């Protein structure tokens, strides 16, 4: 294509010239016959970016095989499994791991208990006003961020906080609501609720309301139709939401750190302390790798149950 003026004095626009030049350069650098590889070129930057994570994991794995040399405060040279032995033999870490798992179990239970009616009404309501309001209530905390939300809970649950003021009005002495296990679980439930609803709601959307109508026309009360129709049909969504909430709780840092006040450490807090307080990078790395393994098992179950397209990436529709 050579730019040329035709008889009417038509000027070949500058944009076209630039475009022609760009196309020519592209043809030179990336001829049509390499079109098969174009997709790989486009996806390569994303693969490289995620590659940073993979390299990071390899670094962690490498560090986890070296113990801390107490004389130099650097990691020793020889490879050993001592860090893992320390973790498995130590009662402290056993306690921390047990606490994290227990908190996850409680959080999953209470989040699902609250998320199910929330999603159900969200999906089934006929009023678009109600639906929109519920969605805004759900998304606002999601965008506010964990630290600010935990700070809000600190204000509410503090000794002079709203909760204590409220029970004070009925003549109850202020009680310590913070820095204990239930307050951490409460914080986690508050944090995880939006995730649980967003995982559950699509599953409930997929259940036709006619199934419930049919059940009630056959004489089932709402409880029977819930336990025999809705819950079984929503099972994939419930399992998915439970696993996501469980994994996120198990690996959480901010809520136990802020609402637990140092007495309710989860695995992530123990890892942080090993890196930044005790400076035992080897032990911290071993803990981190164990947590990654634990998390991967949970996620592996999700992928196995729902397939890799859970998030609809590249959706095979």
């Amino acid at each position, binding site marked *: 294509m050579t730019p040329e003026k035709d008889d009417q004095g038509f000027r070949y626009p500058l944009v076209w010239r630039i475009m022609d030049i760009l196309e020519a350069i592209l043809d030179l650098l990336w001829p049509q016959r390499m079109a098969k590889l174009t997709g790989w070129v486009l996806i390569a930057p994303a693969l490289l970016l995620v590659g940073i994570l993979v390299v990071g994991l390899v670094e962690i794995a490498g560090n986890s095989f070296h113990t801390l040399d107490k004389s130099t405060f650097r990691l020793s040279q020889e490879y050993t499994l001592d860090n893992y032995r320390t973790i498995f033999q130590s009662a402290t870490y056993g306690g921390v791991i047990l606490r994290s798992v227990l908190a996850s179990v409680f959080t999953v239970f209470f989040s699902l208990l609250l998320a199910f009616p929330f999603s159900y009404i969200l999906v089934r309501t006929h009023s678009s006003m109600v639906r929109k309001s519920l969605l805004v*209530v759900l998304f606002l905390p999601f965008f506010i961020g964990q630290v600010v939300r935990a700070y809000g809970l600190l204000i509410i649950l503090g000794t002079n906080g709203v909760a204590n003021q409220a029970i004070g009005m009925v003549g109850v002495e202020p009680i310590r609501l913070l820095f204990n296990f239930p307050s951490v679980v409460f914080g986690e439930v508050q944090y995880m609720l939006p995730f649980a609803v967003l995982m559950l709601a699509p599953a409930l959307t997929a259940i036709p309301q006619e199934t419930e109508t049919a059940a009630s026309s056959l004489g089932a009360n709402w409880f029977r139709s819930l336990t025999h129709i809705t819950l079984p049909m929503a099972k994939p969504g419930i399992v998915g939401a439970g696993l996501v909430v469980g994994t996120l709780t198990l690996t959480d840092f901010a809520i136990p750190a802020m609402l637990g006040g140092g007495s309710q450490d989860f695995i992530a807090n123990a890892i942080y302390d090993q890196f930044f307080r005790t400076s035992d990078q080897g032990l911290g790395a071993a803990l981190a790798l164990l947590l990654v393994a634990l998390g991967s098992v949970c996620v592996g179950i999700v992928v196995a149950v729902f397939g890799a397209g859970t998030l609809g990436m590249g959706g095979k529709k």
Partner: protein
Amino acid sequence: MTSQSQRLIFWGLVWFSILILSLPTIIVVGASFTAGNIISFPPEGLSFKWYEKIALARDLRQAFSRSLVVSLICLAVSLPVGTLAGIALTRYRLRFTSALQIYLLLPFTIPLIGSGIGMMLVFGNMGVLGSMWPVGIACAVINLPFIIWSVSSSAAALDRDLELAAANCGAGRIETFLHVTLPSVMPGVITGGLLMFVLAMTEFLVSLLLTDSRTVTLPVQIYNNVRSIITPDLAAVSSVFVVIALAAVWILDRLVGLEIFLKSK
């Protein structure tokens, strides 16, 4: 819903959820307007003095601008990378697609503390810890699936024939991309960009691991201050985040409609 008792139980639980989801936000915003020197209820009078105070506080202002820089870097990295990857996953026939998807979901599947410490080691070995751009890149990495997901769902809706038609009309590959492919995935790109920006703005754990005392971002600054003493100025700072979140929800609703998240896959 038919039965009265079901309505009662369900709405009871929903109101409880609404309460625990919204109350912290309302309390934080309310506390920021107190005239007293401590947070108490009911607040002692109404004033803007804590907003004045945070506007003058140098450490908070600097932390805020650092958060802004981190979010912009995150956006600058993730927008092109995520858009191209989203297009590649939907518009091109790649081999090993499911393996690719699992790999690209790694940022979600690896616990944040693991990703954060891994990147801390990587950037530490490169000797770049202490500058802002590694934090921006880290935020881009851990949230990358969000933008890939939103671009691919837009791209999946584009009719492949449109691109062929453009080529048939004489458009080159760049022209086709700029005038057909890119405009059609634009809603997904904007949604994804919004998510990336806000999530980088509020990102806490990874920032905590990758910053030192001279480079803290705003969420980390709040965390550090909360641990020392709770004063109403933090409530005022938190209100800034509430405003950002409100704006984000409003834009998201205008762009794609919040109801899209209820659709079954």
